[in-house]
């Protein structure tokens, strides 16, 4: 019995257990709509003074079949990714299947100052870039006295 090999198996088992636990309990407590890690697509969110920028790392999609919508302050990115057409070719063997395959939906809560009328979305090199403008109301204004 080789200790090095059984050790690796043990780690693999632990890792699987951890994955199952997190899929059952949803990982860290947080927002109601928070999701477990490892979701597709992965999302980074940032903001500038005028916009909220969302980047979804979603390679290999057909941009026309991407469904991006905003409703009641929720940004939804949905679509489907098929990494392979149908069955494996005859006589072919599969060694790794790590890439996401199937339909996905991610919902992001936008901050209050987001303006749903000022949204731009682009798909570049497998990244979906969404830019949401902020409302004008937060800007300081001078009021004329009559």
């Amino acid at each position, binding site marked *: 019995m080789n200790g090095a090999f059984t050790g690796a198996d043990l780690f693999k088992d632990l890792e699987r257990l951890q994955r199952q636990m997190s899929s059952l309990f949803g990982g860290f407590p947080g927002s109601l709509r928070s999701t477990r890690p490892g979701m597709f697509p992965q999302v980074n969110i940032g903001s500038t003074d005028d916009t909220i920028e969302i980047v979804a*790392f979603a390679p*290999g999609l057909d941009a026309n079949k991407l469904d991006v919508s905003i409703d009641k302050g929720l940004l939804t990115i949905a679509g489907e990714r098929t*990494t392979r057409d149908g069955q494996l070719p005859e006589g072919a063997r599969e*060694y790794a299947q*790590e890439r996401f395959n199937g339909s996905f939906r991610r919902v992001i809560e936008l901050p209050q100052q987001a303006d749903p009328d000022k949204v731009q979305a682009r798909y570049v090199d497998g990244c979906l870039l969404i830019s949401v403008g902020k409302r004008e109301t937060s800007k300081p204004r001078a009021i004329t006295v009559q």
Partner: protein
Amino acid sequence: MSDNTQLTQREQGGVASQESRQERRVTLAPSVDIIEDGHAVTLWADLPGVSKERLEVKVHDGSLTIDAESVVPVPSNLRLAHAEVRAPYFSRTFTVSEDFDTSKIDATLKDGVLKLTLPRREEARPRRIEVAAV
């Protein structure tokens, strides 16, 4: 789970060079799909945000290395609030056995997905030998 081919294994050797690279920057291992048929091994790797200019596929001493940098065109004054992708660098190394003709590797990159085709050497392809009736 046992590794089926040498191609699916992560490189174990070259520890010194790996470490020196990791000191320089943190890299993510891209997700891959690997399929082998009688003629070739095909590998797909997810590299979102990577353009052709920022991708390097190298074959050296029986190992295949994919190195890429993800560049996302965002405003320069961006303050990151939530990040699931924490490093903009991808790197992954596979060992490639002698059965494959590394001079004929075909690589295409489309919408952040790299597809590599490694053809088998002619003499390494499975073949059926006809038995002649005497």
